[in-house]
């Protein structure tokens, strides 16, 4: 079993964000995730400072570390200089590198994000692209987006974009040389390796769960992780 605490400590965000927690609760007081989920950022720091690998392993495999919205409100308040939000980032990184993320309902969702945001970064050079934001998958974007989507070129032109064009401007076609450079950056820094791991471990999990996982966003496994919510994530009501 890998030495989890030490591996975590290699992450510069843990060296920066793990001081010593005195359990004052100012982070949890202000955390949006703590309002809605059964989650306390204070507990995250408290567990990490025990250096107990078995607790850390349980954390890496749980839904708990996936509730945070990375708003960093906790960082502003901690009187000891801890940064629970950054520790969450480090935990999520390690969880994916070790494959533990597929053990939890929320963790499994990383594949859906990799196949959308991850794919678009490499393909377009942007994290989002209008043609990819399907109104069907985003009903909350409203009728306004549905109309925009149907008339995207006209709307973009109207608003002064250089949609898919050469040269500078909004939503320009990013030159292929630049996209090549980004790809190489991802290769050299471990980004591609992270993407591959997300795929590999997810494939294993999908097989275990008896689901089909091809390469798009339409396969059973991806649809499953994108939509399923067990409803067990909020606080238990105490009578």
């Amino acid at each position, binding site marked *: 079993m890998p030495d989890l605490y030490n591996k975590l400590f290699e992450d510069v965000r843990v060296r920066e964000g793990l*001081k010593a927690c*005195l*359990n*004052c*609760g*100012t*982070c*949890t*007081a*202000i*955390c949006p995730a*703590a*309002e809605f989920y059964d989650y*306390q950022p*204070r*507990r995250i720091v408290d567990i990490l400072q025990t250096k107990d690998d078995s607790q850390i392993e349980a954390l890496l495999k749980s839904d708990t570390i996936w509730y945070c919205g990375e708003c960093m409100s906790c960082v*502003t*308040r*901690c*009187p*000891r*200089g801890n940064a629970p939000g950054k520790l969450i980032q480090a935990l999520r990184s390690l969880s994916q590198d070790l494959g533990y993320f597929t053990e939890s309902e929320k963790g499994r969702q990383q594949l859906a994000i990799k196949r959308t945001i991850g794919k678009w970064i490499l393909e377009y050079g942007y994290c989002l692209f209008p043609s990819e934001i399907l109104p069907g998958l985003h009903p909350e974007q409203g009728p306004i987006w549905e109309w925009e989507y149907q008339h995207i070129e006209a709307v973009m032109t109207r608003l002064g974009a250089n949609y898919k064009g050469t040269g500078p401007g909004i939503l320009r076609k990013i030159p292929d040389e630049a996209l090549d450079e980004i790809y190489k950056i991802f290769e050299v820094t471990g980004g591609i390796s992270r993407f591959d791991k997300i795929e590999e471990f997810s494939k294993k999990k999908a097989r275990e769960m008896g689901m089909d996982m091809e390469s798009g966003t339409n396969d059973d496994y991806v649809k499953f992780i994108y939509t399923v919510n067990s409803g067990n994530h909020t*606080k238990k009501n105490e009578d």
Partner: protein
Amino acid sequence: MNKTAIIIGGGVAGMETAIQLLRLGIEVYLIEKESRLGGHLNSWDHLFPNRRDSKEVSEYLQLGMNEGISLHLNAEIDTLWNDKKKFNIKLKDGTRLNSDALVIATGYEVFDARKKEEYGYGIYDNVITSVELEEFLRNNELKRLFEGKTSKRVGIIHCVGSRDEKVGNLYCSKLCCVTGVKQAIEIRERMPDIEVFCFYMDLRMFDRYFEEMYFEAQEKWGVQFIRGRLSEAAENQDHTLLIKLEDTLTGLPLKMNVGLLILLVGFVPSPETRRLASMLGLKEGDDRFLCPADEHTLTNSTKIPGVFLAGTVKGPEGIAGTITDARAAALQVAAYLTSRE
């Protein structure tokens, strides 16, 4: 030759050191920047743990101030230097003094609660400090504080300006907890329909009868203690405050509306202490309070022969502790002056 000592600071430490030095036959000059003696003692109403009237302690100190002490009030120090024979002081009004020994008793200031921006002190009307509450208690105006308020709840916030890396004060100010418990009792005593909550991190009831006060606050007065540090205060339309913290014992975030927030502000070294220390070359700790020559055995001396420390220049301390420390300082000064003959 006449043995002389200058005491800078006319608060509790300075006054008691002066009284004792006089009794030991030393010629004393006492310099105080305000127009009257007493320092922070003048701000308090009743003192813990026995809730006695602070005026009684003020009177005891005043009684000791007789003509033998050369008093300089409204006196600000311009420069201060040590020429190895004497300690020399020039006041801003031009007066020059010198002595064989020097006692730094310039005390502390309370933490400026405006620095804890998220608490809204100085911005929202219903956020006050523990010092300001004492004044309402002294003037018997507690009821006025609650006039016209829609909420009958008070939140007392512990550790304001202490144990806090964000404001640069890592240390504990020691006496705020018992102050909070005392004030909680005092409010409940005078206004039984007001609900009082103490929001603490740890309850530092370290001295004699402090723990008993905590018990009394809960059992007799129904003060509610919640373990959670205040994260944020925001103002509602009716000027009540919405406070956010976590009840760490149940692990649940907590939001509450209160009518009044009382911030237990801690100690910070006074700017004057730091200024004089730098003029003399005295050592400051990481917490910016002054360091004695030895934490256990030489708690009133410094590395500079003839320069002594008394009271809260060394860190947070209460009235009783300060009076004791001042007497110890006086003894050290007298011993030093005797050994020089």
